[in-house]
């Protein structure tokens, strides 16, 4: 039996506009670039929606209608959902249509796609709750499987997630944690009892997400038939094939002219040609298969880069400094209770901001390996810290005001 488990990550950060020293104290709207460039959130959202979200949802809806066996799962970040509602509500409607089929699972994550777990567990828990509430409100479902930002995982995360009542958690099928074991089975965390771990089959996932259009790849071009054949080979030595990827794979990372949509359109039928294959959502997989072993993951693992660690967001002084300073504000900001200030503060926690500050690719000279809407990691940091200075100023002013109010 090989059950295919699809999970697509859907996320868009609120990118900071160009914000200079002169703006501090004068402009407290940080996310409203309207330049029609890579800092313009609305422009990007509409572009990606047109190229990816809408057409891919259409293909998937058609597949769900045609194949009663077909199932998928999504994780939709809260900041994605917000931008969809604000910039292109039809995108939300199209996700609703998918979810209404009853064969699309929505996973839980932090609303702000943040790294909060690394700095504040209370804030992390609040953001998970916010996300759950939002998913319930929009789609009428409650997440039962959790995926942390960028699949960041360790034993502690699993322990807390189990305590919150989730049945499964997703993580990277990194070689260093699996060792000789296969990602095609379910596992149990070291301190867990019932929580199931689903590990990304990075080989097969990346064949689609990264290599699909690569002409240097000796398997190019990749047909649905060939790929289904690879998946079917798992039969007999695995139970589930976890294909986890960014949703933007379809139409954005791999453009339509690469044939990615045709591939997707034909894939379920090709997979179903093998009588032992079927589809499961993560929670269904956790219900069907037993854990075949215990995985001890004391150190953080993520799905980023070859390192599969936290270095994309936490490796230089700028990143540490920005993260420390943003979380240092937690107590004051939360206790003041100003809704706008809290929301801005949380939007600044989105992992992408810290990713843009990463300098490790610069060191390899391979600058084009990653995407950055800012001209350099230094520009990203300068912008972020200018905004943070303004946020601190607002906090100070609000605090002073509230002291005055209290005294009156």
């Amino acid at each position, binding site marked *: 039996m090989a059950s295919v488990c699809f999970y697509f990550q859907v996320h868009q950060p609120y990118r900071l506009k160009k914000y*200079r*020293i*002169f703006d501090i104290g004068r402009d407290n709207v940080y996310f409203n670039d309207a330049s029609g460039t890579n800092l313009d959130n609305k422009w990007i959202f509409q572009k990606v929606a047109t190229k990816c979200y809408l057409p891919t949802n259409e293909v998937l809806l058609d597949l769900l209608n045609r194949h009663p066996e077909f199932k998928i799962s999504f994780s939709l970040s809260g900041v994605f959902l917000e931008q969809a509602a604000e910039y292109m509500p039809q995108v939300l409607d199209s996700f609703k249509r998918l979810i209404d089929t009853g064969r699309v699972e929505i996973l839980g994550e932090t609303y702000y796609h943040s790294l909060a777990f690394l700095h504040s567990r209370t804030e992390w828990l609040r953001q998970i709750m916010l996300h759950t509430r939002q998913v319930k409100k929009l789609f009428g479902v409650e997440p039962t499987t959790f995926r942390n930002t960028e699949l960041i995982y360790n034993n502690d995360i699993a322990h807390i997630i189990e305590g919150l009542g989730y049945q499964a958690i997703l993580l990277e099928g990194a070689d260093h944690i699996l060792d000789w074991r296969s990602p095609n089975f379910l596992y149990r965390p070291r301190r867990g009892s019932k929580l199931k771990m689903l590990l990304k089959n990075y080989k097969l996932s990346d064949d689609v997400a990264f290599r699909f259009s690569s002409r240097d790849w000796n398997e190019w071009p990749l047909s649905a038939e060939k790929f289904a054949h690879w998946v079917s080979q798992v039969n007999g030595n695995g139970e589930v094939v976890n294909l986890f990827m960014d949703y933007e794979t379809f139409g954005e990372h791999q453009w339509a002219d690469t044939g990615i949509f045709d591939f997707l359109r034909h894939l379920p039928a090709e997979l179903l040609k093998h009588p032992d294959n079927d589809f499961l959502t993560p929670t269904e997989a956790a219900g069907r298969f037993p854990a075949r072993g215990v995985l001890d993951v004391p150190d953080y693992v993520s799905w980023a880069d070859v390192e599969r660690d936290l270095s994309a967001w936490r490796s*230089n*002084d*700028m990143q*540490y*400094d*920005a993260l420390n300073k943003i979380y240092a504000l937690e107590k004051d900001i939360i206790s003041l209770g100003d809704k706008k200030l809290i929301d801005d503060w949380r939007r600044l926690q989105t992992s992408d901001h810290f990713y843009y500050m990463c*300098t490790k690719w*610069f*060191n390899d*000279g391979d*600058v084009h390996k990653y995407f950055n809407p800012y*001209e*350099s*990691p*230094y*520009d990203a*940091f*300068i912008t972020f*810290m*200018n905004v943070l*200075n303004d946020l601190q100023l607002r906090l100070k002013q609000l605090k002073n005001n509230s002291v005055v109010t209290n005294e009156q």
Partner: protein
Amino acid sequence: MKPRILMFGWEFPPQNSGGLGTACFGICKAMARQQVEMIFVLPRRQPVAGNNLPLVFAGLEEIRFETVDTLLYPYVTDQSYAEHYQDIEPGPYGPTLFDEVIAYGKRARSIARKHSFDIIHAHDWLSFPAGLAAKRISGKPLIIHVHATEFDRSGGAGVNEKVYAIEREGMEQADGIIAISHWTKNIIIKHYGIPEEKIRVVHNGIDSDDIVLIPESLHQLKRVGKKMILFLGRITLQKGPDYFLAAAARVLELRDDVFFVVAGSGDMERAMIRRAAELGIADRVLFAGFLRGAEAQAMYQAADLFVMPSVSEPFGLTPLESLVVGTPVLVSKQSGVSEVLHHAIKADFWDIDEMTNKMVALLREPALSKTLTENGHREALSLTWDRSVAGYVDYYKTILNKLRK
């Protein structure tokens, strides 16, 4: 088999006033390390840095120096040459720089006859006529190496027609052109009408071995907690000192604990002193005059930030010198060095707001300064002349192969 090179330069340390001599020195040493057989020709007999630095030049038998007696004054305009000429002993060829350049060209013939070599390599317009003469005599291919063009030196205004004509002739007659940056390559294409495929970009390097840490200067100001931002370079239109002062004035509106140092000399020096007074920041801007060697280095080390706001900078070695001693840099995007240096903050030279924004951020955020310094230092050390010379050798072979066919 590495080709043998006949190389024409114009200046050489310690008698250099600009980047060309420093570059030629770096190139010579790296050529020697890579055992490229070369004869380096200078227009006039002078003590060369190699004699003073036996450690550096020891065992570098491959490099032979040939000198021709002409006046030496690099990075010059014809007018400033005439002024300079009055101050020192008369050269054998005549009073104008053009006379010198032409005379150097004539002398080059006998040198080309005397030696055997496979390819000729000439640096900048001052030695182009020499390179061309050697090519005519020997029939060997000529590569000209463009470190700066008349458009950089003049800032685009008042291009000297005679210099332009020499540059253009050299570029047209040469078998290949090395440009020290894409910035320069684009100028060659745009202003000299040279086809793109005739130009190879090989960026300059830095000789970090020669730089040793020395005690900081200005430590009294630093000790009282003042931050220092440094400009170091010729005070000319090309280097953008006026943009530096404009940004300084804006920074001082936002922070009180900063002082600025302008180190260098040039035809805009007095105007810049006046400009600082006009801006009301004369008490915050120190004009340190022309510094070289250890003095310059002490200044880099004392600075919290080094700024190179050049209007048109073919390469720009100073930011690398600054990074080697561990001071972060802000460079204009209109520079060749910004093409190879990732770990720097960058701005358009004319964007005073952006320069101010970045200067203030750097002073405010120690994490920014630290990350820039650590990464920038490492990157500067990796930009070696050996890397550049490997690029030249590859180009020599390309040109020789092409001509063989």
